[in-house]
Structure formats: C-alpha cells, structure tokens
C-alpha cells in the first residue's frame, strides 16, 4: 500500500511520463481513498494547466517588444566587423 509521500511523488511523476501499470493502479487506489492526496493531485494539475497560460501570457507580453535601435546598431557593427576580417 502506498503512503501519502509516495502517492504524491507518483502523482507528480505521472505528469512527466506514463507510469508503469503497477504504479498506476496503486496511485489510483490511493487517490480514491485519500482525500488529501486527491486534493494534492487536483491542485498540482491545476497549477500545471495554469503554467501553460502563464507561458502564453509571457509570450504575449514579449510580442510587442522590439530591440532598441542602439542594440540593432551594435549587432550590425558586429557583423560588419566580422565580415571585414
């Protein structure tokens, strides 16, 4: 029988890859019987989903960003110098 420490570890591991059958069944049984681990699992998955939105938000913010002209000029100069070598 899994204890809660092991069950939460497996619940998280299940987000990384498909668990072996034995672990999958053990986890499922534990989650059915344990209110706390069930909550843990739901909440961690909620955060996992939220991270996707978080990533999208980051990208949205960045979409409006342009490198300042001075930076572009530094890149140009750098390429030109390398070209001249």
């Amino acid at each position, binding site marked *: 029988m899994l*204890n*809660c*420490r*092991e069950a*939460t*570890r497996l619940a*998280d*591991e299940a*987000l*990384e*890859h498909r668990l072996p059958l034995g672990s999958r069944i053990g986890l499922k049984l534990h989650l059915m019987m344990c*209110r*706390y*681990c069930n*909550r*843990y699992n739901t*909440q*961690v998955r*909620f*955060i*996992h989903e*939220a*991270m*996707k*939105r*978080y*990533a999208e*938000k*980051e*990208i949205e913010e*960045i*979409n409006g*960003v*342009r*490198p300042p002209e001075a*930076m*572009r000029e*530094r*890149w*140009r100069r*750098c*390429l*030109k110098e*390398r*070209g001249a070598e």
Partner: protein
Amino acid sequence: MSGATDVSEKQPVLDPEGWVDRHGDCMYRFALARLRSPDLAENAVQEAMLAGFEAKDGFSGRSSERTWLIGILKRKIYDHFRKSYRERPIEDVEAAREPTDDLFDEHGRWKVGPAKWGVATEAATHRAEFWKVLGDCLKGLPDRLSRVFTLREIDDLDTNEVCKVLSVTETNLWVMMHRARARLRRCMEANWFETENEKA
C-alpha cells in the same frame, strides 16, 4: 568555387547584412522569452548571428534563413543554460534534504493536508493578481528547481532535452519536478487560496 550565380538560382543566398533588419526582432523576442533578460538576449542574438556568419557556407537552403538562424540561436541559449547551470551546481543542502520532510510524518502521512481551494480555482485565473502571485511563487523556488521547472513547464522542452541541457538523469529530473510542484502548490495555497478563503 562554383559560380555565385549558379548558387543563387538553386538556393537562397544568405545575406548577413540584412539579418538585423529582417530577423533581429524575431530573434530578440525568441531569446528574451527564454533568457528573460535583455542583456542576455542581446548577447545570444549577437553570438547566433556571428556563428551564422561563420557557418554561412554550410547553409543548405533546406530551411528558410530565419529558421536556420533561430536554430543556431536555440543552441546558443541551451549553451548558456548549460554553462550557468554548471557554474552554480547542485545546492547540496537542497539536494540532501528531502524538502517534503516537513509535509509528512515518519510513516509518510500528511502532517497537515492540502486545504480545500474551493470554487476559486477556475475563476482565479481571470484575475491579474493570480498571475502575479504565481510568478512570485515561481521566483521563490530554489534556483535549480526553478530552472528545471521553467524549462519543462514554460519553455516546453521535453524530458530528454531538459536532461541534456542540464546534464541530469531522468529520475533526477522527476524528483526535482516533484519538489518544484509540491513547493509551488504550497506557495499558492499560502499566498493566494488561503487569503481567498478568508475573504469568502
């Protein structure tokens, strides 16, 4: 040397002089999204363009100039992660101590179980403060956990890539992801959902 005209008919010729104008914005955003620092992003773009310049004879024309440059940029960014990860290797205290120790008793049972988050979960994501708290919790993770978690969850690298970039084993990666998730969950509970419950 085959004639330059020959080549230009067969494949797009690279034109480094126009790179900054044509791809600078796109490359910069790509780098900024991953490195999260304007200075680091500027450097990475510059290195990628220079590397591209050096390697321009190897350009096969199978992909567009931009895709090719972004590919080089991606490698530069991974190099950066790898290097900075090596320079600040495993915090041994962090690694040795099981950080979930304070969550469970010696039989592996919860000391204090997760609180009920209630109906607030879905609605919460429509509030700007929610994202701020989540961002703060993310920043509050120990350095190496935050790095692993960010690569995996935000930058969407697959397990193999993260393992390669950070030179960790798969098992190690799972353990670190577990620790990161457990900490984030606790942080969100303490800083967002608990206050939500109190208000309700």
